[in-house]
Protein backbone atom coordinates (compact mmCIF):
# COMPACT_ATOMS: atom_id res chain seq x y z
CA UNK A 1 0.00 0.00 0.00
CA UNK A 2 1.13 3.49 -0.77
CA UNK A 3 2.46 5.35 2.18
CA UNK A 4 1.07 8.82 2.65
CA UNK A 5 3.81 11.40 2.39
CA UNK A 6 3.83 14.46 4.56
CA UNK A 7 2.92 17.39 2.36
CA UNK A 8 2.22 20.05 4.98
CA UNK A 9 4.01 23.34 4.66
CA UNK A 10 4.07 26.43 6.79
CA UNK A 11 3.66 29.70 4.96
CA UNK A 12 4.55 32.40 7.44
CA UNK A 13 2.53 30.83 10.20
CA UNK A 14 -0.29 29.62 8.00
CA UNK A 15 -0.27 25.84 7.87
CA UNK A 16 -1.48 24.26 4.66
CA UNK A 17 -1.96 20.54 4.16
CA UNK A 18 -0.31 20.53 0.76
CA UNK A 19 1.68 23.06 -1.23
CA UNK A 20 -0.70 23.49 -4.16
CA UNK A 21 -3.06 26.43 -4.43
CA UNK A 22 -4.66 28.39 -7.26
CA UNK A 23 -3.23 31.60 -8.70
CA UNK A 24 -5.46 34.60 -8.19
CA UNK A 25 -7.57 35.42 -11.22
CA UNK A 26 -7.34 31.96 -12.69
CA UNK A 27 -9.65 30.35 -10.18
CA UNK A 28 -13.11 30.98 -8.88
CA UNK A 29 -16.41 29.74 -7.62
CA UNK A 30 -17.32 28.28 -11.00
CA UNK A 31 -14.71 25.59 -10.53
CA UNK A 32 -16.43 24.03 -7.54
CA UNK A 33 -18.53 22.10 -10.01
CA UNK A 34 -15.41 20.42 -11.38
CA UNK A 35 -13.07 19.80 -8.44
CA UNK A 36 -13.27 19.39 -4.70
CA UNK A 37 -11.83 22.59 -3.25
CA UNK A 38 -11.09 20.92 0.06
CA UNK A 39 -8.29 18.94 -1.57
CA UNK A 40 -6.29 22.09 -2.27
CA UNK A 41 -3.70 23.71 -0.02
CA UNK A 42 -5.53 27.02 0.08
CA UNK A 43 -8.13 29.09 -1.75
CA UNK A 44 -7.38 32.41 -3.45
CA UNK A 45 -10.17 34.20 -5.25
CA UNK A 46 -9.46 36.86 -7.87
CA UNK A 47 -7.88 40.08 -6.65
CA UNK A 48 -10.43 42.43 -5.22
CA UNK A 49 -10.56 46.21 -5.62
CA UNK A 50 -12.18 48.74 -3.32
CA UNK A 51 -14.82 49.90 -5.75
CA UNK A 52 -16.59 47.92 -8.44
CA UNK A 53 -14.62 47.98 -11.71
CA UNK A 54 -15.64 46.87 -15.16
CA UNK A 55 -12.18 45.78 -16.22
CA UNK A 56 -10.49 46.34 -19.55
CA UNK A 57 -11.71 46.42 -23.06
CA UNK A 58 -12.09 43.09 -24.92
CA UNK A 59 -10.42 41.02 -26.28
CA UNK A 60 -8.94 40.30 -22.90
CA UNK A 61 -6.95 37.19 -23.68
CA UNK A 62 -5.07 35.66 -26.57
CA UNK A 63 -2.80 32.70 -27.09
CA UNK A 64 0.90 32.81 -27.83
CA UNK A 65 3.34 29.94 -28.43
CA UNK A 66 3.39 28.08 -25.15
CA UNK A 67 1.42 30.70 -23.32
CA UNK A 68 -1.35 33.25 -23.22
CA UNK A 69 -1.62 36.97 -22.64
CA UNK A 70 -4.39 38.36 -20.47
CA UNK A 71 -5.43 41.82 -19.58
CA UNK A 72 -8.59 41.47 -17.60
CA UNK A 73 -7.94 44.67 -15.69
CA UNK A 74 -9.39 43.27 -12.47
CA UNK A 75 -13.07 43.21 -13.13
CA UNK A 76 -14.38 43.33 -9.61
CA UNK A 77 -17.60 43.83 -7.73
CA UNK A 78 -15.86 45.83 -5.02
CA UNK A 79 -15.05 45.16 -1.41
CA UNK A 80 -18.62 45.33 -0.10
CA UNK A 81 -19.75 42.52 -2.36
CA UNK A 82 -16.60 40.62 -1.45
CA UNK A 83 -17.38 40.82 2.26
CA UNK A 84 -21.04 40.03 1.80
CA UNK A 85 -20.87 37.30 -0.82
CA UNK A 86 -17.42 36.05 -1.69
CA UNK A 87 -15.97 35.39 1.76
CA UNK A 88 -19.15 33.69 3.03
CA UNK A 89 -19.14 31.48 -0.06
CA UNK A 90 -15.59 30.29 0.66
CA UNK A 91 -16.37 29.77 4.35
CA UNK A 92 -18.02 26.48 3.45
CA UNK A 93 -14.56 25.03 2.77
CA UNK A 94 -12.26 23.78 5.49
CA UNK A 95 -9.01 25.08 4.01
CA UNK A 96 -7.41 28.51 4.44
CA UNK A 97 -8.80 31.41 2.45
CA UNK A 98 -6.23 33.90 1.16
CA UNK A 99 -7.60 37.25 0.01
CA UNK A 100 -5.77 38.88 -2.90
CA UNK A 101 -5.94 42.63 -2.73
CA UNK A 102 -5.35 45.13 -5.51
CA UNK A 103 -5.43 48.86 -4.90
CA UNK A 104 -4.68 52.18 -6.51
CA UNK A 105 -2.62 53.65 -3.71
CA UNK A 106 -0.78 52.64 -0.58
CA UNK A 107 -3.54 54.17 1.54
CA UNK A 108 -6.11 52.11 -0.27
CA UNK A 109 -4.02 48.93 0.23
CA UNK A 110 -3.87 49.69 3.96
CA UNK A 111 -7.56 50.45 4.21
CA UNK A 112 -8.64 47.33 2.35
CA UNK A 113 -6.16 45.10 4.15
CA UNK A 114 -7.36 46.26 7.50
CA UNK A 115 -10.99 45.61 6.63
CA UNK A 116 -10.44 42.21 5.04
CA UNK A 117 -7.92 40.94 7.59
CA UNK A 118 -10.41 41.62 10.33
CA UNK A 119 -12.72 38.96 8.92
CA UNK A 120 -12.06 35.81 10.97
CA UNK A 121 -12.35 33.38 8.07
CA UNK A 122 -9.63 35.13 6.08
CA UNK A 123 -6.40 33.27 6.82
CA UNK A 124 -3.97 35.52 5.02
CA UNK A 125 -3.66 38.46 2.66
CA UNK A 126 -1.95 38.45 -0.71
CA UNK A 127 -0.91 41.91 -1.82
CA UNK A 128 -1.03 42.13 -5.61
CA UNK A 129 1.56 44.87 -6.00
CA UNK A 130 2.45 43.55 -9.40
CA UNK A 131 -0.50 43.87 -11.72
CA UNK A 132 0.87 45.13 -15.02
CA UNK A 133 -1.34 48.07 -15.79
CA UNK A 134 -1.45 50.10 -18.96
CA UNK A 135 -2.48 53.22 -17.13
CA UNK A 136 1.12 53.56 -16.04
CA UNK A 137 2.64 51.92 -19.12
CA UNK A 138 3.01 48.63 -17.26
CA UNK A 139 4.22 50.24 -14.04
CA UNK A 140 3.37 48.54 -10.78
CA UNK A 141 4.01 49.29 -7.10
CA UNK A 142 6.26 46.27 -6.97
CA UNK A 143 8.75 47.76 -9.41
CA UNK A 144 10.34 49.94 -6.75
CA UNK A 145 11.90 48.61 -3.58
CA UNK A 146 11.09 51.85 -1.75
CA UNK A 147 7.41 51.72 -2.59
CA UNK A 148 7.31 48.01 -1.89
CA UNK A 149 8.84 48.63 1.51
CA UNK A 150 6.45 51.45 2.39
CA UNK A 151 3.39 49.60 1.16
CA UNK A 152 4.12 46.34 2.96
CA UNK A 153 5.26 48.15 6.08
CA UNK A 154 2.04 50.14 6.31
CA UNK A 155 -0.07 47.03 5.78
CA UNK A 156 2.02 45.18 8.38
CA UNK A 157 0.91 47.71 10.97
CA UNK A 158 -2.79 46.99 10.52
CA UNK A 159 -2.78 43.21 10.70
CA UNK A 160 -1.07 40.27 12.35
CA UNK A 161 -2.31 37.82 9.75
CA UNK A 162 0.24 36.44 7.30
CA UNK A 163 1.01 38.87 4.49
CA UNK A 164 1.93 37.34 1.15
CA UNK A 165 3.49 39.80 -1.26
CA UNK A 166 3.11 38.96 -4.95
CA UNK A 167 6.16 40.28 -6.76
CA UNK A 168 6.34 41.37 -10.35
CA UNK A 169 8.84 39.59 -12.62
CA UNK A 170 9.27 42.79 -14.64
CA UNK A 171 12.18 44.13 -12.64
CA UNK A 172 15.91 44.45 -13.01
CA UNK A 173 16.68 43.11 -9.57
CA UNK A 174 14.05 40.91 -7.98
CA UNK A 175 16.33 40.24 -5.02
CA UNK A 176 16.24 43.83 -3.83
CA UNK A 177 12.44 43.97 -4.10
CA UNK A 178 12.18 40.69 -2.22
CA UNK A 179 14.44 42.00 0.52
CA UNK A 180 12.45 45.23 0.76
CA UNK A 181 9.26 43.25 1.29
CA UNK A 182 11.00 41.03 3.84
CA UNK A 183 12.38 43.96 5.81
CA UNK A 184 8.95 45.57 5.77
CA UNK A 185 7.47 42.53 7.48
CA UNK A 186 6.10 40.30 4.74
CA UNK A 187 5.57 36.67 5.73
CA UNK A 188 5.88 35.12 2.30
CA UNK A 189 6.71 36.10 -1.27
CA UNK A 190 4.78 34.98 -4.30
CA UNK A 191 7.24 34.74 -7.21
CA UNK A 192 5.80 36.00 -9.43
CA UNK A 193 3.06 37.72 -11.37
CA UNK A 194 3.16 37.84 -15.19
CA UNK A 195 5.83 39.24 -17.52
CA UNK A 196 4.36 42.15 -19.46
CA UNK A 197 3.75 41.13 -23.04
CA UNK A 198 2.09 42.06 -26.31
CA UNK A 199 0.94 40.38 -29.50
CA UNK A 200 -0.19 41.93 -32.76
CA UNK A 201 -2.47 40.46 -35.41
CA UNK A 202 -0.40 41.10 -38.53
CA UNK A 203 -3.41 41.14 -40.80
CA UNK A 204 -5.62 43.60 -38.93
CA UNK A 205 -2.53 45.31 -37.47
CA UNK A 206 -4.32 45.54 -34.14
CA UNK A 207 -3.00 44.39 -30.79
CA UNK A 208 -4.54 41.02 -29.93
CA UNK A 209 -5.42 42.40 -26.51
CA UNK A 210 -7.82 45.34 -26.22
CA UNK A 211 -5.58 46.84 -23.58
CA UNK A 212 -2.54 46.59 -25.95
CA UNK A 213 -0.31 44.93 -23.35
CA UNK A 214 -1.06 42.24 -20.82
CA UNK A 215 0.48 39.56 -18.66
CA UNK A 216 2.08 36.47 -20.16
CA UNK A 217 1.28 33.22 -18.39
CA UNK A 218 1.61 29.52 -19.09
CA UNK A 219 4.51 27.14 -19.82
CA UNK A 220 6.48 29.71 -21.82
CA UNK A 221 7.38 31.73 -18.71
CA UNK A 222 8.35 28.91 -16.38
CA UNK A 223 12.13 29.15 -16.96
CA UNK A 224 12.07 32.87 -16.11
CA UNK A 225 10.10 32.23 -12.93
CA UNK A 226 12.28 29.29 -11.83
CA UNK A 227 15.28 31.60 -12.16
CA UNK A 228 13.59 34.30 -10.08
CA UNK A 229 12.59 31.83 -7.38
CA UNK A 230 16.20 30.65 -7.24
CA UNK A 231 17.45 34.22 -6.98
CA UNK A 232 14.97 35.19 -4.28
CA UNK A 233 15.68 32.01 -2.33
CA UNK A 234 19.39 32.89 -2.40
CA UNK A 235 18.86 36.09 -0.42
CA UNK A 236 15.58 35.84 1.45
CA UNK A 237 14.59 33.78 4.48
CA UNK A 238 10.88 33.98 3.67
CA UNK A 239 8.89 31.04 2.33
CA UNK A 240 8.39 31.48 -1.39
CA UNK A 241 5.29 30.56 -3.34
CA UNK A 242 6.26 29.80 -6.92
CA UNK A 243 3.86 30.86 -9.64
CA UNK A 244 4.08 31.00 -13.40
CA UNK A 245 3.85 28.27 -15.98
CA UNK A 246 3.15 25.29 -13.78
CA UNK A 247 1.22 22.72 -15.79
CA UNK A 248 2.28 19.45 -14.19
CA UNK A 249 3.63 18.05 -10.94
CA UNK A 250 7.10 18.06 -12.50
CA UNK A 251 6.87 21.82 -12.96
CA UNK A 252 5.78 22.29 -9.36
CA UNK A 253 8.63 20.11 -8.11
CA UNK A 254 11.10 22.07 -10.25
CA UNK A 255 9.99 25.30 -8.57
CA UNK A 256 10.23 23.74 -5.14
CA UNK A 257 13.77 22.52 -5.88
CA UNK A 258 14.58 26.09 -6.93
CA UNK A 259 13.40 27.31 -3.56
CA UNK A 260 9.61 27.49 -3.42
CA UNK A 261 7.75 26.20 -0.36
CA UNK A 262 4.45 26.09 -2.20
CA UNK A 263 3.10 26.80 -5.66
CA UNK A 264 0.20 28.56 -7.35
CA UNK A 265 -1.41 27.26 -10.49
CA UNK A 266 -3.17 29.53 -12.95
CA UNK A 267 -3.38 28.92 -16.68
CA UNK A 268 -3.21 25.14 -16.22
CA UNK A 269 -6.69 25.33 -14.66
CA UNK A 270 -8.06 26.53 -17.98
CA UNK A 271 -6.39 23.74 -19.91
CA UNK A 272 -7.42 21.13 -17.41
CA UNK A 273 -9.62 22.12 -14.46
CA UNK A 274 -8.37 19.12 -12.51
CA UNK A 275 -4.73 20.23 -12.96
CA UNK A 276 -4.23 21.15 -9.29
CA UNK A 277 -5.54 17.81 -8.09
CA UNK A 278 -3.34 15.99 -10.60
CA UNK A 279 -0.34 18.04 -9.45
CA UNK A 280 -0.90 17.12 -5.80
CA UNK A 281 -1.09 13.45 -6.76
CA UNK A 282 2.01 13.78 -8.93
CA UNK A 283 4.04 15.30 -6.11
CA UNK A 284 2.98 12.38 -3.90
CA UNK A 285 4.17 9.92 -6.51
CA UNK A 286 7.49 11.73 -6.89
CA UNK A 287 7.99 11.70 -3.12
CA UNK A 288 7.38 7.97 -3.09
CA UNK A 289 9.74 7.33 -5.99
CA UNK A 290 12.46 9.44 -4.46
CA UNK A 291 11.74 8.23 -0.93
CA UNK A 292 11.09 11.66 0.47
CA UNK A 293 9.19 11.65 3.72
CA UNK A 294 8.58 15.33 4.16
CA UNK A 295 8.04 17.88 1.46
CA UNK A 296 10.62 20.15 3.10
CA UNK A 297 13.28 17.86 1.68
CA UNK A 298 12.40 19.26 -1.72
CA UNK A 299 12.48 22.96 -0.92
CA UNK A 300 15.59 24.60 -2.32
CA UNK A 301 16.98 21.15 -3.04
CA UNK A 302 18.68 21.97 -6.33
CA UNK A 303 22.29 20.81 -6.31
CA UNK A 304 24.69 23.42 -7.58
CA UNK A 305 28.44 23.22 -7.58
CA UNK A 306 30.40 26.07 -6.22
CA UNK A 307 30.38 28.25 -9.24
CA UNK A 308 33.25 30.51 -8.36
CA UNK A 309 35.70 27.67 -8.15
CA UNK A 310 34.38 25.65 -10.99
CA UNK A 311 33.61 28.27 -13.53
CA UNK A 312 36.50 28.48 -15.87
CA UNK A 313 35.79 31.62 -17.84
Amino acid at each position, binding site marked *: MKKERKMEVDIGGMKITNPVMPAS*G*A*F*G*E*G*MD*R*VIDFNLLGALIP*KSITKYPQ*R*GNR*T*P*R*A*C*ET*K*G*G*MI*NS*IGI*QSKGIDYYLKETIPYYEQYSIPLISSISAESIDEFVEMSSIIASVTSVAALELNISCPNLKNNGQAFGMSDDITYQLVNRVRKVTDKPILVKLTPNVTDIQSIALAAERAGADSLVVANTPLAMAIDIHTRRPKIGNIMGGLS*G*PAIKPIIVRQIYQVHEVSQLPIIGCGGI*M*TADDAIEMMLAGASAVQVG*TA*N*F*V*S*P*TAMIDIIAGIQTYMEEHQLHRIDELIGGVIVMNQREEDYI
Partner: protein
Amino acid sequence: MRDYHVTVLSNKQVSNRYWHLIVDSSDLKEAIEPGQFFNIKSTDYQTYYPLLRRPFSIYRIKEDTLEFLYKAEGAGTKQLATYKPGQKISLLGPAGVSYSIPKNCKKILLLARGVGIATLAALAQKADQMNIEIYAILSARNKDDLLATKTIEKYCTKVYCVTEEDKTSDVEHVRRMIHDLIKTHHIDAAYTCGSRRLSMLLQKITKANGITSQVALEEYMACGMGVCYSCVCDIKRQGVMQTVKSCEDGPVFPLEEVIFE
Protein backbone atom coordinates in the same frame (compact mmCIF):
# COMPACT_ATOMS: atom_id res chain seq x y z
CA MET B 1 -20.43 20.64 -15.33
CA ARG B 2 -17.49 18.31 -15.21
CA ASP B 3 -14.40 17.46 -17.21
CA TYR B 4 -15.63 14.38 -19.04
CA HIS B 5 -13.34 12.02 -20.87
CA VAL B 6 -15.53 10.73 -23.62
CA THR B 7 -14.96 8.50 -26.61
CA VAL B 8 -15.21 9.79 -30.15
CA LEU B 9 -17.71 7.71 -32.11
CA SER B 10 -17.46 9.56 -35.38
CA ASN B 11 -15.73 12.68 -36.67
CA LYS B 12 -16.36 13.43 -40.31
CA GLN B 13 -15.99 16.24 -42.75
CA VAL B 14 -19.48 17.07 -43.95
CA SER B 15 -18.70 19.89 -46.32
CA ASN B 16 -15.74 21.84 -47.52
CA ARG B 17 -15.22 23.58 -44.19
CA TYR B 18 -17.54 21.87 -41.72
CA TRP B 19 -17.01 18.83 -39.58
CA HIS B 20 -19.42 16.74 -37.58
CA LEU B 21 -18.32 15.15 -34.31
CA ILE B 22 -20.24 12.51 -32.40
CA VAL B 23 -19.14 11.41 -28.95
CA ASP B 24 -20.37 8.79 -26.54
CA SER B 25 -22.18 10.65 -23.77
CA SER B 26 -23.49 7.69 -21.84
CA ASP B 27 -21.37 8.69 -18.83
CA LEU B 28 -22.89 12.16 -18.67
CA LYS B 29 -25.54 12.14 -16.03
CA GLU B 30 -26.33 15.85 -16.13
CA ALA B 31 -29.15 17.43 -18.10
CA ILE B 32 -27.93 19.08 -21.27
CA GLU B 33 -30.00 21.79 -22.88
CA PRO B 34 -29.86 23.50 -26.30
CA GLY B 35 -27.81 26.69 -26.12
CA GLN B 36 -25.31 25.20 -23.73
CA PHE B 37 -21.78 24.39 -24.81
CA PHE B 38 -18.78 22.24 -24.03
CA ASN B 39 -15.21 23.40 -23.84
CA ILE B 40 -13.21 20.85 -25.78
CA LYS B 41 -9.53 20.30 -25.11
CA SER B 42 -7.34 20.45 -28.15
CA THR B 43 -3.89 20.33 -26.58
CA ASP B 44 -1.66 17.84 -24.84
CA TYR B 45 0.93 18.11 -22.10
CA GLN B 46 3.76 17.98 -24.57
CA THR B 47 3.13 20.62 -27.17
CA TYR B 48 0.59 22.84 -25.39
CA TYR B 49 -0.53 23.80 -28.86
CA PRO B 50 -3.00 25.29 -29.05
CA LEU B 51 -2.98 26.02 -25.33
CA LEU B 52 -6.60 26.73 -24.53
CA ARG B 53 -9.77 24.73 -24.92
CA ARG B 54 -12.27 25.65 -27.60
CA PRO B 55 -15.97 26.16 -26.88
CA PHE B 56 -18.54 24.43 -29.08
CA SER B 57 -22.31 24.54 -28.87
CA ILE B 58 -24.27 21.39 -28.56
CA TYR B 59 -25.62 20.50 -31.98
CA ARG B 60 -27.63 17.41 -31.21
CA ILE B 61 -28.49 15.65 -28.00
CA LYS B 62 -29.46 11.99 -28.12
CA GLU B 63 -29.87 9.32 -25.49
CA ASP B 64 -26.24 8.25 -25.45
CA THR B 65 -24.55 10.60 -27.84
CA LEU B 66 -23.70 14.23 -28.15
CA GLU B 67 -23.02 15.90 -31.46
CA PHE B 68 -21.09 18.97 -32.47
CA LEU B 69 -20.86 20.77 -35.78
CA TYR B 70 -17.75 22.82 -36.28
CA LYS B 71 -15.84 24.75 -38.85
CA ALA B 72 -12.22 23.56 -39.11
CA GLU B 73 -10.38 26.81 -39.44
CA GLY B 74 -7.69 27.62 -36.93
CA ALA B 75 -5.31 25.57 -34.82
CA GLY B 76 -7.88 24.31 -32.33
CA THR B 77 -10.53 23.23 -34.77
CA LYS B 78 -7.93 21.67 -37.06
CA GLN B 79 -6.70 19.68 -34.09
CA LEU B 80 -10.27 18.66 -33.32
CA ALA B 81 -10.59 17.44 -36.90
CA THR B 82 -7.72 14.99 -36.32
CA TYR B 83 -9.55 13.10 -33.59
CA LYS B 84 -10.37 9.57 -34.63
CA PRO B 85 -13.20 7.26 -33.58
CA GLY B 86 -12.20 5.40 -30.45
CA GLN B 87 -10.01 8.22 -29.21
CA LYS B 88 -10.75 9.71 -25.78
CA ILE B 89 -11.23 13.46 -25.68
CA SER B 90 -11.80 15.84 -22.85
CA LEU B 91 -15.05 17.81 -22.74
CA LEU B 92 -15.70 20.37 -20.04
CA GLY B 93 -19.37 21.09 -19.60
CA PRO B 94 -22.24 21.35 -20.07
CA ALA B 95 -21.73 25.06 -19.55
CA GLY B 96 -23.81 28.15 -19.82
CA VAL B 97 -27.40 29.25 -19.98
CA SER B 98 -29.71 27.46 -22.38
CA TYR B 99 -32.45 28.86 -24.63
CA SER B 100 -35.80 29.37 -23.04
CA ILE B 101 -39.02 28.77 -24.92
CA PRO B 102 -41.96 30.85 -23.67
CA LYS B 103 -45.02 29.07 -22.33
CA ASN B 104 -47.71 28.35 -24.90
CA CYS B 105 -45.30 29.07 -27.66
CA LYS B 106 -46.66 27.90 -31.05
CA LYS B 107 -44.33 29.25 -33.69
CA ILE B 108 -40.72 30.30 -33.58
CA LEU B 109 -38.26 31.85 -35.96
CA LEU B 110 -34.60 30.82 -36.18
CA LEU B 111 -32.04 33.05 -37.86
CA ALA B 112 -28.67 31.37 -38.25
CA ARG B 113 -25.50 32.48 -39.92
CA GLY B 114 -22.73 30.04 -40.78
CA VAL B 115 -21.94 27.57 -38.08
CA GLY B 116 -24.42 29.37 -35.82
CA ILE B 117 -26.77 26.77 -37.23
CA ALA B 118 -25.31 24.22 -34.81
CA THR B 119 -26.81 25.64 -31.64
CA LEU B 120 -30.10 26.51 -33.34
CA ALA B 121 -30.40 22.95 -34.63
CA ALA B 122 -30.33 21.75 -31.03
CA LEU B 123 -33.06 24.24 -30.22
CA ALA B 124 -35.08 23.11 -33.26
CA GLN B 125 -34.82 19.51 -32.10
CA LYS B 126 -36.28 20.45 -28.73
CA ALA B 127 -38.95 22.78 -30.12
CA ASP B 128 -40.02 20.05 -32.54
CA GLN B 129 -40.48 17.67 -29.62
CA MET B 130 -42.75 20.33 -28.12
CA ASN B 131 -44.73 20.42 -31.38
CA ILE B 132 -43.75 23.97 -32.12
CA GLU B 133 -43.77 25.18 -35.71
CA ILE B 134 -40.30 26.26 -36.73
CA TYR B 135 -39.39 28.71 -39.48
CA ALA B 136 -35.70 29.01 -40.13
CA ILE B 137 -33.61 31.36 -42.20
CA LEU B 138 -30.14 30.03 -42.76
CA SER B 139 -27.45 32.29 -44.11
CA ALA B 140 -24.03 31.21 -45.33
CA ARG B 141 -21.25 32.11 -47.71
CA ASN B 142 -22.17 29.43 -50.16
CA LYS B 143 -24.35 26.39 -50.66
CA ASP B 144 -21.60 24.07 -49.56
CA ASP B 145 -21.70 25.58 -46.10
CA LEU B 146 -25.43 24.88 -45.98
CA LEU B 147 -24.96 21.12 -46.32
CA ALA B 148 -25.58 20.79 -42.61
CA THR B 149 -29.10 22.06 -43.11
CA LYS B 150 -30.41 18.55 -43.61
CA THR B 151 -30.46 18.01 -39.86
CA ILE B 152 -32.40 21.13 -39.12
CA GLU B 153 -34.82 20.59 -41.99
CA LYS B 154 -36.16 17.49 -40.27
CA TYR B 155 -37.42 19.60 -37.40
CA CYS B 156 -38.57 22.69 -39.25
CA THR B 157 -41.80 23.61 -40.88
CA LYS B 158 -39.96 25.66 -43.43
CA VAL B 159 -36.32 26.45 -44.07
CA TYR B 160 -35.13 29.36 -46.19
CA CYS B 161 -31.54 29.50 -47.32
CA VAL B 162 -29.66 32.58 -48.37
CA THR B 163 -26.04 32.78 -49.54
CA GLU B 164 -23.50 35.23 -50.84
CA GLU B 165 -23.10 32.91 -53.79
CA ASP B 166 -26.72 33.48 -54.75
CA LYS B 167 -26.52 37.14 -53.76
CA THR B 168 -29.49 36.55 -51.43
CA SER B 169 -27.84 37.03 -48.06
CA ASP B 170 -27.69 40.82 -47.79
CA VAL B 171 -29.27 42.31 -44.70
CA GLU B 172 -31.95 44.10 -46.73
CA HIS B 173 -33.16 40.88 -48.27
CA VAL B 174 -33.14 39.07 -44.94
CA ARG B 175 -35.07 41.95 -43.40
CA ARG B 176 -37.80 41.54 -46.00
CA MET B 177 -37.91 37.78 -45.46
CA ILE B 178 -38.33 38.21 -41.70
CA HIS B 179 -41.03 40.82 -42.19
CA ASP B 180 -42.91 38.53 -44.56
CA LEU B 181 -42.64 35.65 -42.10
CA ILE B 182 -43.86 37.74 -39.22
CA LYS B 183 -46.78 39.01 -41.28
CA THR B 184 -47.82 35.52 -42.45
CA HIS B 185 -47.32 33.63 -39.19
CA HIS B 186 -47.81 34.65 -35.63
CA ILE B 187 -44.21 34.19 -34.43
CA ASP B 188 -44.03 33.87 -30.62
CA ALA B 189 -40.29 33.89 -30.25
CA ALA B 190 -37.16 34.39 -32.34
CA TYR B 191 -33.61 33.06 -31.90
CA THR B 192 -30.37 33.90 -33.61
CA CYS B 193 -26.72 32.97 -33.65
CA GLY B 194 -23.70 33.51 -35.81
CA SER B 195 -23.78 37.09 -37.04
CA ARG B 196 -23.55 40.44 -35.35
CA ARG B 197 -25.26 42.17 -38.25
CA LEU B 198 -28.17 39.75 -38.35
CA SER B 199 -28.49 39.90 -34.57
CA MET B 200 -28.79 43.67 -34.72
CA LEU B 201 -31.35 43.34 -37.46
CA LEU B 202 -33.42 40.83 -35.50
CA GLN B 203 -33.07 42.96 -32.38
CA LYS B 204 -34.72 45.88 -34.16
CA ILE B 205 -37.49 43.84 -35.77
CA THR B 206 -38.42 41.85 -32.68
CA LYS B 207 -38.39 44.94 -30.53
CA ALA B 208 -40.66 46.78 -32.95
CA ASN B 209 -42.99 43.79 -33.08
CA GLY B 210 -42.90 42.84 -29.41
CA ILE B 211 -41.51 39.39 -30.06
CA THR B 212 -39.44 37.62 -27.38
CA SER B 213 -36.03 36.93 -28.78
CA GLN B 214 -32.71 35.41 -27.73
CA VAL B 215 -29.22 35.39 -29.12
CA ALA B 216 -26.31 33.00 -28.51
CA LEU B 217 -23.10 35.02 -28.42
CA GLU B 218 -19.67 33.70 -29.34
CA GLU B 219 -17.21 35.66 -27.24
CA TYR B 220 -13.59 34.63 -26.90
CA MET B 221 -13.31 32.33 -23.89
CA ALA B 222 -10.19 31.36 -21.97
CA CYS B 223 -11.67 29.27 -19.13
CA GLY B 224 -15.31 28.61 -19.98
CA MET B 225 -16.00 28.15 -16.26
CA GLY B 226 -16.79 31.68 -15.19
CA VAL B 227 -13.48 32.37 -13.50
CA CYS B 228 -11.30 34.38 -15.88
CA TYR B 229 -13.52 37.25 -17.08
CA SER B 230 -12.20 37.10 -20.63
CA CYS B 231 -15.54 36.38 -22.29
CA VAL B 232 -17.39 39.42 -21.04
CA CYS B 233 -19.93 41.44 -22.95
CA ASP B 234 -22.03 44.46 -22.12
CA ILE B 235 -25.73 44.11 -21.55
CA LYS B 236 -28.40 46.45 -20.32
CA ARG B 237 -30.67 44.70 -17.85
CA GLN B 238 -33.55 46.59 -16.32
CA GLY B 239 -31.95 49.81 -17.42
CA VAL B 240 -28.59 49.04 -15.84
CA MET B 241 -25.45 48.56 -17.93
CA GLN B 242 -23.59 45.47 -16.81
CA THR B 243 -20.49 43.64 -17.93
CA VAL B 244 -21.39 39.98 -17.72
CA LYS B 245 -19.60 36.72 -18.41
CA SER B 246 -20.94 35.11 -21.54
CA CYS B 247 -19.76 31.66 -20.47
CA GLU B 248 -21.79 31.73 -17.28
CA ASP B 249 -24.44 34.41 -17.67
CA GLY B 250 -24.74 33.42 -21.34
CA PRO B 251 -23.96 32.45 -24.05
CA VAL B 252 -27.72 32.82 -24.54
CA PHE B 253 -29.06 36.29 -23.72
CA PRO B 254 -32.36 38.04 -24.24
CA LEU B 255 -31.70 39.81 -27.53
CA GLU B 256 -33.00 43.15 -26.33
CA GLU B 257 -30.45 43.25 -23.50
CA VAL B 258 -27.36 42.88 -25.66
CA ILE B 259 -25.43 46.00 -26.56
CA PHE B 260 -23.85 45.68 -29.99
CA GLU B 261 -21.57 48.73 -30.07
